[in-house]
């Protein structure tokens, strides 16, 4: 499969034409409509010999002098966070090419060349920024060197941009394509010899570029995991225990085997799951429905009520080892003029990517070919190798565009199932989760509760005590985030309530609810002190600046920067009559965000009309996508805070599909306004940071509109008229 990556766009077009449907594994859909200069390859012979200057880029030889066609590999998995466009933009910037000359190709898992091929933690751009720039700049260095040698002039007299190397004094120029073969033969320069651009010289970074997969998306090309098909491929589904805490006792597969198209039925997954392998997706789904299985309980089965009670009890207990303990919290509370104590709770949440779990696997005697939507392919490779008792070097993973992930595809259950089923069925399989499987087979954002206490003395916040309790969650707090550093007496404790329900990272893990609760609580403290919520936050961050307490991770100055920007852009405190504003701010994934939510009463219903969002994420690579990412985070945060509800009865998930699980829909979203702090700092995360503050901003605005504080998510359960 990897050899196919060497094919050119022309060949790719031919291949897709002949296959007529299924996606060629390991292949990416190519350039956006109207962007690539198609005259570069139309009418030309098939380009088979792209010249690789390093693992990140290849240049087609330019024999005609017409120009250069450049392929840039995008190393990280694309989950909707735009890295497939924005990462190659960084390479292209330093390489000095016209973006229209660039074809982007999704790299497969290739740890020999790429580091951290993960879509998670909002770290793709931040952690590869230097590497991507160096990849482009190093290749440019070689191309300039090749031109200088060819012309017999000093490299220092040459410059490179727009896919050409130019020598001003002799008025000569040569395309990258014409220089690539010579450049590839040169010794790569020492890292210190490679010159990177100053941000002021950027011509591509900071300009808005369309999603490179736009054409495939708009015309329905097979670019997602579920769209993969190879000759002889079968489809599989799996029946898993319906409740957490149950295991398979026995099953009858007679009816399943009688379904047209069902080829095989067998136990797998430590004899706890049943696979149905069929010649079509529908047959595999129907076969699964026809299975008769008997399950037995292992110990007590959990329900939401029992889980909530277990967490609630923990909130009143001291933790064995606090996560943070500054000053003397006990004394601060004992001598306080006033103590505020509030408890907040939020349920488990499924991730619900629109593309349900799936993976392609072809396990043969000597190799394991895998391909599909994976947020953490390197880890999955190790897990599959271990499961099948194979050497990791025999396992390959191709990466398809993902129909969302939100953390779900950081867990590899669907990859492991696909691999095991293929190895037993001895056939290539497309393993498919139904929506019900995806929502009930469990990886969830854990349910969590917080108790916040504030000690007030002499009109000041002098003590802060946070206790968190989460289901299967090792740490429910962020001991090095605000307000750590700003409050002299600060205690943060965390309890893990053991559970059989499997959890995993969900977009902005922990902070997706912690920030909502905390920022609601700070609104209450400000009110108790008679202070403006924005001014109160600024004062606390000023304290962290001038009189820092212990260690903490954020830069208070940057926090103040986004707070002021959001307040200014939202006209904080000067909203028109009938518009109720709520404020929230949070630092996560190395980025700073402040949000103002605006709520209007429409009859008895509080409606979120607008959210103004200020973000400091350093340099913005692709503004159009960055704005969209921030807006999506806000809407996702609000949607789940308002509507997301998930519960268990006797270990069994009570919501199985979108008829019972409510996601935010068209018409329920606010307008979102995004403002970036102008910055030349290295870029930080964007996929997650606007989500955590959203719930708190809305809760605080609801309070202004209705006079009622919100302590429960989903808010629809607690806020009158929300409906």
């Amino acid at each position, binding site marked *: 499969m990897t050899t196919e990556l060497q094919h050119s766009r022309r060949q790719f077009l031919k291949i897709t034409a002949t296959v007529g449907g299924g996606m060629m594994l390991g292949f990416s859909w190519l350039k956006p409509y109207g962007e690539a200069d198609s005259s570069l390859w139309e009418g030309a012979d098939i380009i088979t010999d792209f010249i690789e200057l390093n693992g990140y880029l290849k240049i087609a030889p330019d024999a005609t002098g017409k120009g250069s066609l450049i392929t840039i590999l995008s190393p990280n998995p694309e989950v909707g966070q735009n890295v497939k466009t924005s990462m190659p933009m960084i390479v292209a910037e330093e390489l000095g090419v016209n973006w229209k000359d660039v074809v982007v190709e999704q790299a497969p898992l290739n740890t020999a060349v790429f580091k951290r091929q993960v879509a998670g933690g909002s770290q793709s751009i931040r952690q590869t920024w230097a590497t991507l720039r160096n990849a482009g700049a190093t290749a440019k260095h070689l191309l300039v060197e090749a031109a200088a040698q060819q012309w017999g002039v000093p490299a220092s007299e040459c410059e490179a941009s727009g896919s050409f190397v130019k020598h001003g004094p002799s008025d000569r120029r040569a395309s990258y394509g014409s220089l690539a073969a010579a450049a590839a033969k040169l010794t790569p320069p020492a890292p210190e010899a490679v010159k990177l651009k100053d941000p002021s010289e950027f011509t591509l970074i900071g300009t808005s570029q369309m999603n490179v997969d736009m054409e495939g998306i*708009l015309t*329905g090309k097979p670019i*997602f995991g579920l769209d993969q098909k190879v000759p002889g491929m079968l489809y599989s589904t799996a029946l898993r225990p319906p409740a957490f805490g149950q295991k398979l006792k026995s099953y009858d597969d007679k009816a399943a085997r009688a379904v047209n198209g069902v080829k095989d039925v067998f136990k797998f997954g430590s004899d706890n799951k049943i696979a149905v392998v069929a010649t079509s997706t529908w047959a595999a789904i129907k076969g699964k429905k026809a299975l008769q299985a008997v399950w037995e309980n292992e110990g007590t089965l959990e329900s939401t009520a029992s889980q909530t009670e277990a967490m609630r009890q923990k909130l009143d207990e001291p933790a064995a080892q606090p996560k943070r303990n500054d000053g003397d919290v006990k004394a601060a509370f004992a001598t306080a003029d006033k103590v505020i104590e509030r408890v907040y709770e939020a349920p488990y949440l499924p991730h619900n990517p*629109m593309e349900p779990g799936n993976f392609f696997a072809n396990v043969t005697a000597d190799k394991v070919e895998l391909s599909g939507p994976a947020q953490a392919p390197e880890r999955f490779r190790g897990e599959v190798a271990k499961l099948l008792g194979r050497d990791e070097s025999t396992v390959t993973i191709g990466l398809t565009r993902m*129909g969302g992930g939100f953390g779900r595809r950081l867990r590899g259950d669907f990859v492991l199932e696909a691999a095991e089923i293929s190895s037993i069925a001895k056939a290539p399989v497309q393993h498919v989760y139904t929506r019900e499987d995806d929502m009930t087979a469990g990886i969830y954002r854990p349910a969590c509760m917080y108790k916040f206490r504030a000690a007030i003395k002499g009109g000041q916040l002098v003590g802060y005590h946070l206790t968190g309790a989460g289901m299967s969650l090792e740490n429910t707090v962020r001991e090095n985030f605000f307000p750590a550093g700003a409050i002299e007496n600060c205690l943060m404790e965390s309890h893990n309530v053991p559970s059989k329900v499997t959890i995993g990272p969900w977009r902005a893990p922990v902070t997706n609810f912690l920030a909502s609760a905390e920022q609601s609580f700070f609104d209450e403290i400000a009110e108790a002190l008679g202070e403006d919520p924005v001014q109160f936050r600024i004062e606390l961050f000023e304290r962290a600046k001038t009189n820092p307490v212990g260690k903490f991770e954020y830069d208070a100055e940057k926090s103040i920067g986004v707070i002021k920007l959001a307040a200014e852009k939202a006209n904080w405190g000067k909203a028109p009559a009938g518009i109720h504003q709520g404020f929230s701010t949070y630092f996560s994934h190395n980025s700073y965000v402040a949000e103002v939510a605006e709520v209007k009463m429409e009859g008895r219903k509080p409606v979120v009309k607008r959210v103004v969002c200020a973000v400091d994420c350093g340099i913005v690579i692709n503004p159009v996508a960055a704005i969209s990412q921030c*807006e999506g985070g806000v809407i996702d945060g609000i949607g789940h805070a308002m509507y997301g509800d998930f519960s268990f009865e006797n270990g069994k998930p009570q919501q199985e599909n979108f008829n019972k699980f409510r996601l935010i829909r068209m018409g329920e979203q606010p307008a979102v306004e995004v403002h970036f702090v102008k910055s030349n700092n290295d870029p930080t995360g964007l996929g997650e940071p606007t989500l955590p503050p959203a719930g708190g901003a809305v809760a605080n605005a609801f309070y202004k509109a209705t006079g009622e504080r919100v302590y429960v998510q989903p808010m629809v359960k607690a806020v009158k008229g929300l409906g």
Partner: protein
Amino acid sequence: MAKYNITVNGKKHKVEADPDTPLLWVLRDNLGLYGTKYGCGIGECGTCTIHYNGNAMRSCSMTVADVGESAITTIEGLSTDASHPLQQAWREHDVPQCGYCQAGQIMSAAALLANTPNPDDEEIDAAMYSNICRCGTYNYIKAAIKTAAGKM
């Protein structure tokens, strides 16, 4: 298995499938038209939206046997060269994030504009309510529909 003659994107196709097979899976597995997506299988998310005699329908919730003589249009047949005003507007607004729901969004929007050339906000909200976008691109979708509405 039964044999059906169905018309998809103006082309007649002979397909063999069980009568209860949702049209969605016939389009994807039998005809290789992967643009129509599977999202929920119960007509709740809209990712599988197609046109059935010009009306937006959930292809997961109708069977191949239901198709009969009706004309089916999928995202692949919305235009021959990706030039439908909605496709152009989607580019102009750079609408998609993950992109998975967008074919269904466009098909719902196309049916809306065919019947209501200049929809207001409420009409857009009502027509698009059945299409979930998990990434939260709703404002972009709405803006693109308004852009396209002027060009139909």
